[in-house]
């Protein structure tokens, strides 16, 4: 199988988020960077599928030169090759991102077609839930979103997603595009050996045109703070009797 995974470099935010003065971005001075939890699972899924069916996996990102760090991390986990669409423009909206990714995927697929293209269900920063589906339309590929179980058959795939009442099962022909949700697998951590090997794996650098934003960000704002008045019941095991009183008052026992 020839598999492609798309990931996005984002700051690894803590409890407190500081905004830049112009409110256009997050202050990242003291932050590390990562990819979204869903994308970690997409990467793991690609590695597991190659382990099972043979073939190779490529990871693709559109981002700053530093996004090579996230590509190398994916290579260290077991992906074979990386592609970086390098840009110094910070905000690409979903439509712009999808257009740029689709163009690169099309020219890569001309060299060797992809059997499966994996996306995260949503990026951690934009939470747009749409880049994968837009790329599927550009490339005219069948697509299912929010997948938490995936089975590859002979020329087709079965993909399931979780709903309140259980599971919805979809069938789709391959080649296909799937957007993945956390829970589909348990991502591995890179091993020391994997990290060493990743240094020698190829990363291609390309560029792309930004078509112009159609969802125009004005500014980022903090949501209104909703602090509660907390009733402190005590410290350590001495609090047990008051805790049980609370259980009684709430009628949970």
């Amino acid at each position, binding site marked *: 199988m020839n598999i492609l995974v798309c990931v996005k470099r984002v700051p690894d935010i803590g409890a407190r988020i500081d905004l830049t003065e112009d409110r256009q971005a997050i202050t990242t001075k003291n932050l590390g960077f990562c990819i979204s939890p869903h994308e970690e699972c997409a990467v793991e899924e690609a590695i597991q599928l190659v382990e099972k069916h043979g073939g190779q996996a490529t990871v693709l990102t559109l981002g700053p030169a530093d996004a090579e760090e996230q590509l190398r991390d994916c290579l260290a986990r077991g992906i074979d090759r990386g592609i970086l669409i390098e840009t110094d423009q910070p905000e690409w909206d979903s439509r712009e991102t999808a257009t740029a990714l689709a163009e690169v995927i099309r020219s890569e697929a001309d060299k060797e077609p992809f059997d499966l293209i994996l996306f995260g269900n949503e990026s951690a*920063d934009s939470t747009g839930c*749409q880049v994968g589906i837009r790329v599927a339309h550009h490339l005219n590929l069948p697509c299912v*979103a929010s997948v938490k179980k995936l089975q590859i058959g002979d020329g087709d795939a079965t993909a399931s997603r979780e709903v309140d*009442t259980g599971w919805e099962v979809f069938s789709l022909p391959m080649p296909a595009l799937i957007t993945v949700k956390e829970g589909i697998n348990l991502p591995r951590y890179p091993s020391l050996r994997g990290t060493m090997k990743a240094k020698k794996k190829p990363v291609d650098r390309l560029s792309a045109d930004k078509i112009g934003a159609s969802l125009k*960000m004005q500014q980022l704002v903090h*949501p209104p703070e909703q602090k509660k008045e907390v009733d*402190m019941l005590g410290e350590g095991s001495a609090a047990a009797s008051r805790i049980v009183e609370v259980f009684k008052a709430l009628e949970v026992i």
Partner: protein
Amino acid sequence: MILGVIEYEQSTMTELSLQMVTFGRDLAEKSGDEFVGLIIGASDNAPLIGELGRYGVAKVITAAHENLKDYAPVAWANTISQVIDQTQAKMVMAPGSDQGNEVMAHLAARSDLPMATNCAAVSADDLSRITRLRWGSSLMEEAILTGDCKLITIAPFVVEAAEGASHAEPAEESFEPTLSDQDIQVRLIRKEPDETEGITLKNASVVVGGGRGVGSPEAYSVLEELAKLLGGAVGCSRVATNNGWRPHSDQVGLTGTRISPELYIACGISGAIQHLVGCKGAGKIMVINKDPEAAFFGKADYGVIGDLHEVLPAIIEELKAQGV
């Protein structure tokens, strides 16, 4: 006109759908537009139309076609697109569920329009200034949505579902889209009901959650014992899932399950925003943490400072002493 795409499960509107209708109806009232519900492919429209009437919706379009019998994202999106052409709708909204986001993304892609997911507010002046939740609800973005028809999804739980001030008897208009078999290339082939019986994370009245502070998979036994005494279920944070201590199905939060017990007891969990969004629906929250500065205390109703490995056994002992 503002069109709301109704999501339903066996002829009942989903909770997120009711929230979306509440949001859309109130917005339309302020902007002077008409809010119209769009029901696609339902086998029995009557109960849904009745429900929309109670929510004050005066007009409903029902779309039916051979190829809409089972949910198929492209067929759904294609249907909405044809309804927009016919009605000249200014805005289309759907609930911010997996299905709602999926359908709207297909619609946006095929129409080459922008789409704003997870909206929390829309300006009634011209429907183009929106505020949406980003970063898993940690931040909000104010943005301008271009395009003739505005496509949005409504963030879960930003409004409470509320019936209309007056109940309506909705006018029903049926619509038959033109669809091909290409539109159902990807479709729902079956549903598998949740097999787990009894108390689950979703329906439990008490949830005992454990995070990094629990320390090991074995140490969850004390959480399980407490949950059992209280007739509840055990949940966990993403750190516990990532460490392989608990299955992902136990995870509470943004990328896990959203819970709504009467009482949530969070042990050794710091209170990261992505965890908090998963327990917003809890009636009361009790936090047990050894760090008095833990962010979770600021979001809790009851707090206990201490080592969970001491506090939980003491609670269990006290419960047993009282004959629970």
